[in-house]
């Protein structure tokens, strides 16, 4: 089955499913995570990302499928056959789960003591990791006496001191306040680079995933929607869910055919109106195009393939301005963002244009999807 012998793959998740009663938490999930990669599992709550993470760590048993991890020599280990304490994988819990009755040093040493390492080696490795996370002066403190950011560092230190092949992080930044969170995002990225461990982060915060991860798996309803790097996810989403979940944008409904993308929106006469669009997925039938705010240009004169609209709101944010434009036949307004001050006044009649390559055609949700 493993025809592809890519030496760069560390973790291979193949067709993993898990149901709780009738609720399907994971539905045929497959993905490959590369060595030294910062990988994010992104999705709304209940999408299955945490279940997948816990299945890798060993705290959930998938109903079917396989999860294997490879070592340096290319040999593969079946993770699912091992109990959590025998897996070369560590998990940083959302609550950090620091042992309250042990000080920082004892917390970090706990995992090494379980490996029956010598006292001198344990001491040396704990000292080293304390320095890496900058907590050398807090080694005697109990977790209760630490700030949120410091606790997070201890949890991270406790996991990386084991030198796992894979570090799993469950919503690592959600317990921190906004300011500390931004700091720790950079810190996590720096640490991952420094220790050279593959990180898999679970998050529901798309900005967090976009700013930290090399690649992101977007999940919904227990299924993988798309796996790609942040720029591809933003500019070439696979489907409406990904387009909607990542970044901001406007969807314009219509019909895709070999001729192009036609729409009734804009009230430009009967029979539909051809709009500039890019159809990399060769979608046929009911479809939408997704327009990012910065892709839409406004002009005063009509050009071929432009949509008419009315400026209803403008906001100037110093460096850039955001305008809200209503288009006849479209039930939600189009948002545009341009550098500099707004070029059009509220109440002005404008035309919307965009380069064809920036308007991605996506299959419209079927009636079945809408029921869900």
């Amino acid at each position: 089955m493993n025809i592809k012998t890519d030496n760069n793959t560390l973790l291979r998740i193949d067709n993993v499913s898990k149901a709780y009663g009738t609720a399907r938490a994971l539905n045929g999930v497959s993905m490959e995570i590369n060595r030294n990669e910062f990988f994010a599992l992104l999705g709304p709550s209940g999408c299955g990302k945490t279940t997948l993470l816990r299945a890798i760590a060993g705290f959930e048993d998938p109903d079917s499928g396989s999860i294997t991890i490879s070592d340096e020599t290319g040999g593969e280990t079946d993770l699912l056959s091992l109990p959590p304490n025998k897996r070369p994988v560590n998990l940083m819990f959302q609550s950090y789960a620091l042992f309250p009755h042990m000080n920082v040093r004892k917390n970090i040493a706990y995992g090494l003591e379980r490996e029956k390492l010598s006292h001198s080696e344990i001491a040396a490795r704990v000292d080293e990791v304390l320095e890496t996370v900058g907590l050398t002066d807090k080694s005697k403190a109990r977790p209760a006496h630490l700030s949120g950011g410091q606790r997070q560092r201890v949890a991270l230190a406790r996991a990386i001191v084991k030198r796992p092949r894979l570090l799993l992080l469950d919503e690592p930044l959600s317990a921190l306040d906004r300011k500390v969170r931004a700091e720790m995002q950079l810190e996590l990225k720096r640490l991952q680079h420094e220790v050279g461990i593959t990180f898999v982060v679970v998050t529901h915060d798309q900005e967090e995933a976009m700013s930290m991860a090399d690649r992101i798996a977007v999940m919904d309803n227990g299924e993988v929607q798309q796996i790609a790097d942040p720029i591809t996810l933003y500019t070439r989403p696979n489907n409406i869910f990904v387009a909607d979940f990542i970044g901001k944008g406007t969807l314009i409904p219509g019909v895709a055919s070999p001729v192009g993308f036609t729409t009734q929106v804009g009230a430009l006469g009967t029979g539909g109106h051809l709009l500039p669009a890019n159809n990399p997925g060769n979608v046929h039938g009911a479809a939408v195009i997704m327009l990012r705010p910065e892709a839409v240009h406004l002009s005063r004169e009509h050009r071929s393939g432009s949509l008419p609209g009315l400026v209803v709101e403008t906001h100037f944010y110093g460096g850039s301005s955001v305008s809200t434009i209503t288009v006849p036949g479209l039930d939600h307004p189009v948002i545009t963002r341009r550098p500099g001050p707004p070029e059009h006044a509220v109440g002005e009649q404008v035309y919307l244009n965009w380069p064809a390559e920036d308007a991605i055609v996506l299959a419209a949700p079927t009636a079945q999807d809408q029921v869900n």
Partner: protein
Amino acid sequence: MPKIGWLRLPLTLTYLFLYTPIVVLVIMSFNASKTPFVWKGFSTRWYTELFQDDLIRQGFINTMIVAVSATILATILGTLLAIGISRYFRSAILEAYALAPAIIPDLALAIGLLAFFSLMGVTLSLVSVLLSHVVFGMAFVAAVVIARMGQTDSSLEEASRDLGGNALTTFFKITLPSLAPGIIAGALLVFTLSLDEFVVAYFTNGPATPTLPIVIYSMVRFGVTPEINALAALLLLVSFTFVISAQRITRLTDSV
């Protein structure tokens, strides 16, 4: 600080109401007079007599045997019961049944246990008192430990497993220490409850081995002697020592 003014009055009265009898009792235990309520000068004579009284000494030994063994048994069983209920069953009904002996009226529990012992053909002795004390003691320990479990992060044990700890290591290094304040508090509670427990002991004990509260009861029937004041003062000292050390230990082991 806000002025409370007149609120000091009811506060003072409440404390007087609570502690006057105790203070009088302790003072009277040092009274040289044989009649309990006439002061005739300071004396430790009753304490000396207390220690020479065979009946009281035997009662004290019996009580200690029961209290110490009941505390040990009830603490172990109650802790396991608490872990079992909150980890593996999560059933409100099961929990209610486990904790019920702590709230069932002593009299009902005593009669029930007596009926049980005679049905099983058990000769009433210190052993039957001990078993009876374990019944309600276990419920008290379980109640305290379950409350403690509610406050501890349930992912601690998963974290231990994740870091390479097997089930046994996780139990002894993580589960037990994180529950320790609750377990210690429960044990001290059972000890103090068993120490002066009368109703259940009276029903389930054999005639040859009276515990201290039963000895005191039979003595008081002929009037309160200064000797009993001295005994009560000593019991008070023991209880205070235990409660204060319980608080100290809980604070030390706690993560606060």
